[in-house]
């Protein structure tokens, strides 16, 4: 085959004559369009959804897209966003955690009790809360693995039990206020990235994207594998840079980029690395796709399940600390109400499959942006939470419906 039509220099992975490969920018764009038409939508529906939601709310209330409101949004989305990240972990392995809200409430209560009641240092309080979260996840994992109770039931039990623990920790008081001058509260309310540093971070992010892409392309070329063209990579990096600079400059018009938001984005990036570039991440995906096949491949399936539950509850605890810091108080309703469902909805709206094996951490980021936008927009319109529930529910349904349609199209076009 190689001696005929194809030149000897063809990359190892492009030698099959049935394969159409993109060459320049136009080809890349065309390939992207074909992917979307085949149902490989990626993050496109969510981004489209965000555009629609933002347009509607902006037309109803001109302050919605104001810099001030977006800064608030960037704060408010973090606690639920961290919870949603945890949910992505358990959804990846095809399980569910219904108790992230309660666990975050317990963690908030632990933080407050240790810091305020027992007057211990903040670090100790945070460590205790996160450790408690991880322990809860570990217990879930053991019950799930050894007893075989479905995760739905284990964590439903946890939802109730830990709500009880939270109320018991806060017994006798409605709320424990965190001191306003504590690092936690300042972090969650007052700390902003200096304007120049925010720009620098944006440039660094785009530069990092370019550099990793370039190194990757070079190692692939050296290994005689196909690599994306430099032109396309530079175009992507420039687009990213423009988007980031615009976002930063817009937020910088008022208070700027919150450190808490940076923390969240960093968490998303680190988790994304773990999911896509480590053996552990592969195992998560594999177990979610086919647990028996993973076991036969020598993966410690039980360990992977436990790790997913621990990660989820640990992140839930972190989210709880952030929620308490944001409010400057841990109260009996921290993490109750719609927090649980919002976290799960965010992960699913972002494109994480409920059936396991498919998802990304960016799903949590985008999904929580949708949910928090709806909530913020309705608050600005002075509409009470009844509307919020209905609209969030509808958006969830649309997102999952779209995903199902896309999945069918993907299967028909051989994109899994």
């Amino acid at each position, binding site marked *: 085959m190689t001696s005929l039509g194809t030149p000897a220099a063809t990359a190892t992975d492009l030698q099959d004559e049935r394969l159409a490969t993109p060459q320049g920018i136009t080809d890349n764009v065309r390939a992207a369009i074909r992917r979307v038409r085949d149902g490989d939508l990626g993050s496109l529906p969510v981004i489209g959804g965000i555009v629609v939601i933002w347009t509607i709310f902006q037309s109803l209330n001109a302050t919605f897209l104001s810099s001030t409101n977006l800064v608030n949004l960037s704060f408010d989305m973090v606690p639920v966003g961290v919870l949603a990240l945890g949910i992505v972990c358990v959804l990846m392995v095809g399980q569910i955690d219904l108790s992230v809200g309660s666990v975050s409430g317990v963690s908030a209560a632990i933080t407050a009790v240790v810091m305020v009641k027992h007057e211990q240092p903040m670090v100790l309080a945070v460590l205790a809360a996160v450790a408690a979260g991880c322990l809860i996840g570990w217990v879930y994992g053991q019950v799930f693995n050894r007893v075989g109770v479905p995760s739905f039931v284990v964590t439903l039990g946890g939802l109730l039990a830990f709500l009880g623990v939270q109320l018991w920790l806060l017994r006798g008081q409605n709320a424990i206020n965190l001191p306003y001058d504590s690092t936690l509260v300042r972090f969650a309310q007052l700390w902003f990235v200096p304007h120049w540093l925010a720009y620098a971070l944006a440039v660094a992010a785009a530069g990092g994207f370019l550099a990793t892409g370039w190194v990757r392309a070079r190692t692939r070329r050296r290994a005689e*594998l196909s690599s994306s063209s430099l032109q396309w990579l530079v175009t992507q990096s420039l687009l990213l840079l423009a988007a980031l600079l615009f976002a930063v400059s817009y937020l910088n018009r008022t208070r700027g980029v919150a450190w808490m938001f940076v923390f969240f984005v960093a968490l998303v990036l680190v988790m994304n690395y773990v999911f896509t570039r480590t053996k552990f991440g592969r195992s998560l*995906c594999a177990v979610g796709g086919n647990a028996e*096949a*993973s076991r036969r491949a020598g993966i410690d399936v039980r360990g992977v399940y436990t790790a997913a539950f621990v990660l989820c509850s640990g992140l839930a605890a972190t989210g709880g600390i952030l929620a308490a810091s944001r409010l400057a108080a841990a109260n009996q309703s921290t993490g109750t109400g719609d927090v649980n469902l919002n976290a799960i909805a965010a992960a699913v709206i972002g494109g994480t499959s409920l059936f396991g094996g498919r998802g990304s951490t960016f799903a949590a980021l985008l999904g929580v942006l949708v949910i928090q936008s709806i909530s913020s927009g309705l608050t600005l319109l002075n509409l009470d939470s009844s509307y919020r529930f209905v609209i969030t529910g509808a958006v969830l349904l649309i997102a999952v419906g779209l995903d199902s349609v896309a999945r069918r199209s993907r299967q028909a076009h*051989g994109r899994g």
Partner: protein
Amino acid sequence: MSEATAVPGAATDTVLSLRGICKHFGAVAALTEVDLDVAAGEVVAVVGDNGAGKSTLVKVLSGVYTPDAGSIVLRGEPVFLDSPALAHARGIATVFQDLALCENLDVKANLFLGQELRPWMLDDVAMEKRSWQLLRELSAKIPTLDVPVAALSGGQRQTVAIARSLLSDPQIVLLDEPTAALGVAQTAEVLNLVERLKHKGLGVVMISHNMEDVRAVADRVAVLRLGRNNGVFDAASVSAEEIVAAITGSTDNVVARRAARRTTSPQAEKGEL
């Protein structure tokens, strides 16, 4: 085809030896008192009817099932294979009949599942190169490695599963109907591969319903019938009829009757009907 080296039952350097393996599933005795020996550089074909217990035997050997009774001896050392990971560590690689691939992962992720290079910073490039190399060796007709396995044809999947078993430099390879879904060229490649493994001194257990394939590569043929040993034959000297008789349990079996009918005249066949 080389001369058959091993005489039935009298293996010189046995790498794997099973004695009295039993496995029950509820009331069903899938395996009863099964013995099997595999020498280094030897291909043992395991044949038997549907439900004879061949796949169960393979799963016992690969650590998927733990046997209810019996012993497994690997290179003279009794082992207790209670997890697939342990079997991997002992150098046993398996191609399962149901392939055991993760449909949501792409081809290279499946090939390296559980044995990824550089666990904390996956070496995608090296893994992809090695994947192509392995797949080319098997004449795999897979256009791209970026698609999830769900998008591959049955034979392509089988090739992926076979390629995966070769990745870890095993000492014993178990192939459960490795050519069932393969095309002519790919089947020939797999048979070549089995011979290569044999010449490298590996022990190979191959399950197949295809007598031609069995006689082409196997040194010995072990027959299972209803979960029990039903004879071990020297592949070079045994006739297909003898194997079929051992598989079905009698010389007067449906296969023999069909063969007899083929040789008699069409008139006689009509009369028979």
